[in-house]
């Protein structure tokens, strides 16, 4: 019996997101070729949007591009539509949008941290992190009426205001996170095992990051200070003047490895807390919606013609929507969504090339894609000309060997 295993693991993990198929070409241990596919979760959302009766419905569709980034997508789409129709968004609405988006970032990064801990078998940390995350979930639920799908966006503003009491609750929540931040930092940045498994693993150089158009924390961890909130400010970020976070802010060096991605994400949680506090303090008063009458809005949308691009920094990076409307037709003439993971998939190739199969899970997880992305990894062994699938199990196995090597080198 030779060492080839075919381990089909379907999309079977609770932390799954969009499944993607990866084909790795390996020669022995080393990865010499990577190829990626993605069809398990293709739902044809853009097509559905182009064939809906109106743009308002598509907000909810955009929201369900993803349950985790579900503010970024409607944010982006609504922004694009507003550009087409030239609707002015009230300032207060812009601030509320910002606050919600940052709340989402906190929840998303904590979720990721928990899953990453689970990935290395540290279930207690997973439980603990998720327990802390409940607090932001409560805030979201309080503000929007649901824990996950927020349904707060509307073309021309937001649907719900933040009341005095609401503001107080958010502030309390933010205090809670500031207090607990050091615990999280302690766990993730000072734990020797985590460090050992992530330092110098899955390196993406700055050049590759730029060439492959990486976005979000992945690009920033490679030292590219790229953040839509900074480069192309929208909503209240225009007033805040944000600075993109790169790992050298933490310890003065950039490796572009998995550990750096952890640093960037954790620092961003802290940054989000700051932004929220700032936004609450500076929130202008006024209306929250440009056009309250939905029927009128619909008519406006039907009359509008033109194209618009919305860009938003989702927790995982730049999200971009292109919208085109045609006068007299309610559905979009054209709609293109580009979620961040889309761009962060290609960088896996340099991260994995020349690396070991063992690194695949942690590298992939570090871009915070959707874990089912890994659902089936097909390995083409060039030596044996035999195709077999590797799975997490096998990869864990391999990662062992890798860890051993690292440990040896480390001493």
């Amino acid at each position, binding site marked *: 019996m030779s060492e080839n295993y075919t381990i089909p693991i379907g999309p079977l993990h609770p932390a799954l997101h969009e499944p993607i198929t990866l084909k790795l070409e390996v020669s022995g241990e080393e990865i010499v070729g990577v190829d990626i596919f993605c069809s398990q979760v293709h739902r*044809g959302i853009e097509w559905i949007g182009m064939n809906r009766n109106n743009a308002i419905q598509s907000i909810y569709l955009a929201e369900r591009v993803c349950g985790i980034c579900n503010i970024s997508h409607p944010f982006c789409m609504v922004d694009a539509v507003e550009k087409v129709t030239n609707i002015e968004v009230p300032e207060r609405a812009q601030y509320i949008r910002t606050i919600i988006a940052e709340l989402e970032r906190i929840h998303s990064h904590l979720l990721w941290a928990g899953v990453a801990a689970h990935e290395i078998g540290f279930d207690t940390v997973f439980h603990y992190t998720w327990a802390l995350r409940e607090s932001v979930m409560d805030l979201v639920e309080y503000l929007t009426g649901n824990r996950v799908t927020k349904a707060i966006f509307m073309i021309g503003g937001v649907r719900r205001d933040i009341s005095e009491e609401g503001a107080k609750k958010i502030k309390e929540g933010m205090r809670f996170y500031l207090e607990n931040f050091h615990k999280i930092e302690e766990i993730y940045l000072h734990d020797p095992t985590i460090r050992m498994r992530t330092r110098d693993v899955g390196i993406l150089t700055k050049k590759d990051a730029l060439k492959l158009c990486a976005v979000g924390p992945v690009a920033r961890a490679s030292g590219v200070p790229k953040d839509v909130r900074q*480069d*192309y400010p*929208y909503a209240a970020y225009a007033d805040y003047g944000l600075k993109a976070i790169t790992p050298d802010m933490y310890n003065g060096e950039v490796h572009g490895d998995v550990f750096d991605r952890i640093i960037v994400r954790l620092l961003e949680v802290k940054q989000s807390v700051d932004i929220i506090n700032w936004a609450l303090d500076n929130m202008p008063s006024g209306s929250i919606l440009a056009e309250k009458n939905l029927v009128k809005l619909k008519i406006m949308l039907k009359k509008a013609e033109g194209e618009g691009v919305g860009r938003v920094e989702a927790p995982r990076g730049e999200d971009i929507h292109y919208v085109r409307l045609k006068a007299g037709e309610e559905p979009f003439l054209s709609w293109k969504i580009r979620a961040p993971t*889309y*761009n962060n998939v290609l960088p896996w190739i340099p991260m994995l090339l020349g690396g070991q199969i063992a690194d695949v899970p942690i590298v992939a997880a570090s871009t915070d894609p959707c874990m089912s992305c890994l659902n089936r990894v097909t390995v083409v062994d060039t030596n044996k000309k035999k195709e077999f699938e590797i799975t997490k199990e096998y990869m864990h196995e391999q990662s062992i060997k890798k860890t051993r090597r690292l440990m040896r080198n480390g001493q």
Partner: protein
Amino acid sequence: MNVSDIVGEIEKNFKAEIKVVEREYGKKKVKQSTIFVRIERGNFRKFVEFLFTLQQYPHFSVISATDLGGEVELVYHFSVGYGDFNGEKMVSLGVTLPKSDLRIESITDLIPGALISEREIHEMVGVEFIGLKDTRHFFLPENWPEGKYPWRRDETFPDEMLNKLYETWREVDKNE
């Protein structure tokens, strides 16, 4: 480099239809701008190369496609000038391709990051990218029928594959 410089450069070098969309945000009314450029297919590659003169690595986001009936319009979304507060400008480059000749040069040699996007447009709309080596499906299943393009608004749309999920239970409903 500000918007007017870029627009000037473009006008100097290309015969192009240029539209600048600006939008203000926040209390401070910070201006953010998108440059829409429509260009001939022949000049397309030159234009992309021109972007490299603006910045060493122009950021490429995605290609969007619109079926306009007789032709398909592709819009390439680029941005240049990252790194500083409000330093980035978006350049959206539109190219129109007649349906009888859906071909355009690939830019994957200049910007490797465009691979997925080109493959996507290839499978969804049926545009042929000259120089794109890898034309396998990315989002659609491998056994997807030949010559069917879900994002087209014509006869190549796979009508027979359309499923109305909500309808599946209507019949049951009737028994009620």
